[in-house]
């Protein structure tokens, strides 16, 4: 569906211009992390642990170092010893010691694929050969992968003692968060209907197409450059400098095009190692991951065990909710539990609530952010339980949600009141959508689910400059993952009242623009957009001021209209100067026209989404096909409508993969058996129907154009929407993801 009519009151906001990075990407000219090469560059290779848990007794690198063409070898001993420091420059807080030990293991390996040593050589083949010559003596330790196994009294401890746990007995609990209010037990006891269930899922990977890669060049004078793709080159600078204990200003990070991140590129894996190899060899060094490396050694979203109890009065009013969950943390402390607690039940008005979550250390790669990190898991459980509750009450599941939906001013789980949220408007739009009342075919079922994500603001810097010909360049510090260059150009063109093509946007390196937080938390169009608008307004003011001085009239007599400075009164009334005319004479009117905006954006608002999913279940094979899907979302206001729809469709596609196909398969030795896209089954185009999107616009009053983050919300509801559709089609409640054909077949035919 199209955006609401009010979008048409803008010149550019809500339009769909051609993306400025499109031609380079479709013609293969775009420079991604794996494409970059530097003169004299060496090729790196990393030796990874074959064991999920082992003590490193010794590392013998002599044979590798003797191989002709090998220029440097590094191990964890080459990284400086660091004091614990919790940093939040990526997504979620991380201890810099953990980040360092994840780049190169120090005394223990904590998962299969954990980097142990690295080599730089004159060819990639030599580098791999040399890495294979490194001899590592391990003391293999018992490993643990499962959540309940890791919490058992006799479980091997990943770290001793685990930080942030009970504080009493060493355990693998890395984080424990509880929020809520009221009297849950009493309310459940008095409820007319109570549903409860346990829901489980395995970790899933973000599945970005582009594997991690970088080139680092560290000179003898201490200055260094890094070229890489990431969700935040300032994050790369900060973490790399901290791991290496060097000044940030000595590192210049140049962002390259990024082939997907979804939260998984908000930390460093390779950059500090490439830096060490470069310092040792005196040459630029390239390190890159294979797809196998990405699966074995980079952070997935956590798997989960989630217990839910919901209670309601006979009329469907929710009276109590209890959600208790365990998330895989992997080898190091992760952060998803906090977001999981915040994202579980806040979309409903419930007087009595208790939500508890823990992070559990285990011998898997450290979990990392994945699109609304921590939210889809709990939402799967809560929205499945809501479906069950509707069935028990004999109520329409959409009416049940509308009856209990949170409104602006209602309290979130944290106790903070919701702002201008558009949750009810989403539910109303869904109810009015033809999909909701469309007939279903044989073996088909319809499921619904709703969810939300808090979004974020934070620091962004933008520089907007005017060229002598009156064209504009917006330089930001925010990597463009979802089309932010186009969105920034649209917002600047809107302020400046000039054609979209008159504004170009680039992503500047860390030495060329001020600090900007990662492109994550659905923050860039909101926060960097705020900075862009602020800079554009200042440039507009400067252009008017220059025109006023040129005409020798008071500044207040000049206004910016339709891309021109216009004199509005006095003898020069009606005189006009274009940006080209003002900027073309800037040499003689005070110098170049440029403005910088640096801010920490506040006032972000969450996004809410509601999804309708139709499935068809093959009774013979258990295969589930998605036959129709509609995603309704409060987007605040869509700046570039195509990109907003694309974000919604992408999130749904990833959520469907999570629901139906994706899972890690480890063998009894703790080794991953499906580290590739052939065996780790992500959805492909032929698995998908056209995903219909409905953009509900409830503008954020704090943002100049009403923006709310849109990128993460759409992955939250699909897991339950699909599961509820399968329930409707088969009568079977699937509580374990993925709902792969074997599981569905077992449920249908009494084997499960």
């Amino acid at each position, binding site marked *: 569906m199209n955006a609401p009519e009010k979008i048409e009151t803008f010149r550019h906001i809500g339009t769909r211009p051609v993306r400025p990075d499109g031609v380079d990407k479709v013609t293969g000219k775009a420079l991604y992390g794996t494409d970059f090469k530097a003169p004299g560059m060496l090729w790196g290779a990393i030796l990874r642990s074959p064991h999920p848990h082992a003590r490193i007794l010794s590392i013998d690198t002599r044979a590798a170092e003797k191989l002709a063409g090998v220029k440097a070898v590094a191990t964890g001993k080459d990284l400086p010893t660091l004091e614990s420091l919790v940093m939040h420059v990526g997504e979620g807080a991380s201890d810099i010691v953990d980040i360092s030990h994840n780049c190169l293991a120090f005394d223990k390996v904590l998962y299969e694929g954990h980097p142990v040593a690295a080599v730089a050589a004159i060819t990639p083949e030599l580098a791999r050969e040399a890495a294979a010559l490194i001899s590592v003596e391990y003391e293999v330790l018992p490993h643990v992968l499962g959540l309940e196994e890791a919490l058992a009294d006799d479980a091997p401890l990943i770290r001793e003692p685990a930080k942030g746990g009970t504080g009493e007995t060493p355990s693998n609990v890395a984080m424990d968060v509880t929020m809520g209010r009221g009297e849950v037990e009493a309310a459940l006891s008095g409820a007319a209907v109570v549903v409860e269930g346990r829901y489980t899922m395995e970790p899933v990977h973000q599945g970005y197409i582009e594997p991690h890669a970088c080139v680092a060049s560290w000179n003898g004078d201490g200055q260094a450059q890094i070229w890489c793709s990431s969700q935040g080159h300032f994050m790369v600078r900060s973490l790399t400098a901290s791991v290496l204990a060097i000044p940030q200003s000595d590192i210049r990070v140049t962002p390259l095009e990024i082939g997907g991140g979804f939260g998984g590129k908000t930390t460093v894996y390779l950059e500090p190692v490439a830096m060490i190899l470069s310092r040792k060899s005196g040459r630029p060094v390239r390190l890159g991951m294979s797809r196998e490396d990405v699966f074995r050694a980079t952070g997935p979203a956590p798997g989960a065990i989630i217990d839910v109890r919901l209670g309601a009065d006979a009329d469907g009013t929710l009276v109590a909710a209890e959600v208790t969950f365990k998330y895989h943390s992997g080898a190091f402390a992760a952060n998803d539990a906090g977001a999981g607690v915040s994202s579980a039940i806040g979309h409903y008005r419930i007087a009595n609530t208790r939500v508890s979550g823990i992070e559990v250390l285990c011998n898997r790669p450290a979990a990392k952010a994945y699109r609304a990190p921590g939210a889809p898991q709990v939402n799967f459980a809560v929205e499945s339980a809501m479906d069950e509750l509707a069935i028990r009450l004999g109520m329409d599941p959409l009416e049940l949600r509308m009856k209990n939906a949170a409104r602006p001013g209602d309290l979130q789980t*944290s106790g903070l009141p919701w702002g201008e949220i558009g949750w009810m408007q989403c539910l109303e739009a869904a109810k009015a959508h033809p999909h909701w009342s469309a007939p279903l075919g044989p073996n088909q079922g319809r499921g619904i689910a709703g969810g939300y994500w808090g979004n974020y603001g934070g620091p962004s810097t933008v520089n907007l400059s005017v060229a002598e010909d009156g064209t504009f360049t917006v330089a930001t510090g925010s990597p463009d993952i979802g089309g932010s260059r186009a969105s920034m150009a649209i917002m600047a063109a809107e302020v400046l009242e000039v054609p979209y093509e008159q504004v170009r946007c680039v992503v500047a390196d860390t030495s060329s623009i001020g600090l900007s937080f990662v492109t994550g938390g659905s923050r860039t169009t909101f926060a960097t957009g705020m900075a862009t608008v602020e800079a554009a307004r200042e440039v507009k003011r400067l252009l008017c001021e220059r025109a006023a001085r040129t005409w020798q009239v008071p500044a207040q007599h000049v206004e910016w209209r339709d891309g021109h400075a216009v004199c509005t009164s006095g003898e020069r009334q009606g005189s006009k100067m274009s940006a080209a005319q003002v900027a073309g004479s800037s040499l003689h009117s005070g110098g170049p026209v440029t403005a910088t905006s640096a801010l920490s954006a*506040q006032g972000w608002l969450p996004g809410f989404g509601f999804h309708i999913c139709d499935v068809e279940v093959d009774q013979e094979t258990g295969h589930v096909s998605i036959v129709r899907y509609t995603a309704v979302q409060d987007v605040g206001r869509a700046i570039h409508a195509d990109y907003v729809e694309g974000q919604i469709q992408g999130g749904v596609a990833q959520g469907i993969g999570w629901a139906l196909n994706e899972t890690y398969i480890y063998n009894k030795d703790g080794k991953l058996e499906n580290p590739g896209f052939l065996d780790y089954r992500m959805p492909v185009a032929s698995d998908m129907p056209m995903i219909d999107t409905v953009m509900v616009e409830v503008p954020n009053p704090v943002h100049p154009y009403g923006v709310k983050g849109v990128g993460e919300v759409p992955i939250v509801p699909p897991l339950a929407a699909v599961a509820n559709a399968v329930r409707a089609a088969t009568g079977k409640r699937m509580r374990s993801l993925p709902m792969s054909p074997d599981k569905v077949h077992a449920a249908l035919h009494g084997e499960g």
Partner: protein
Amino acid sequence: MSASPLRIVIMPPFDKEFFGAERLSLDAGNLFELIEKLDAQGPGFAKIARARVHLAVDGVLETDWTRPLADVREVIVLPRVGGG
């Protein structure tokens, strides 16, 4: 400085991790000063605050910690949530 002590609501996990309490009363001129005073009651809190803490002033998240607290009644200390 606020006219009367601020009501400080400490959300999990910080209540148990640092303070052993869910409610505190403190005076502070701005949020930076509040963090200092909280650190005095829960040593180590200031060190992790920037990375792990969000502060809500009278129900609204506030990232500008220079904000004066003269007319403020309540500050909620809650976990900072990351995104993807």
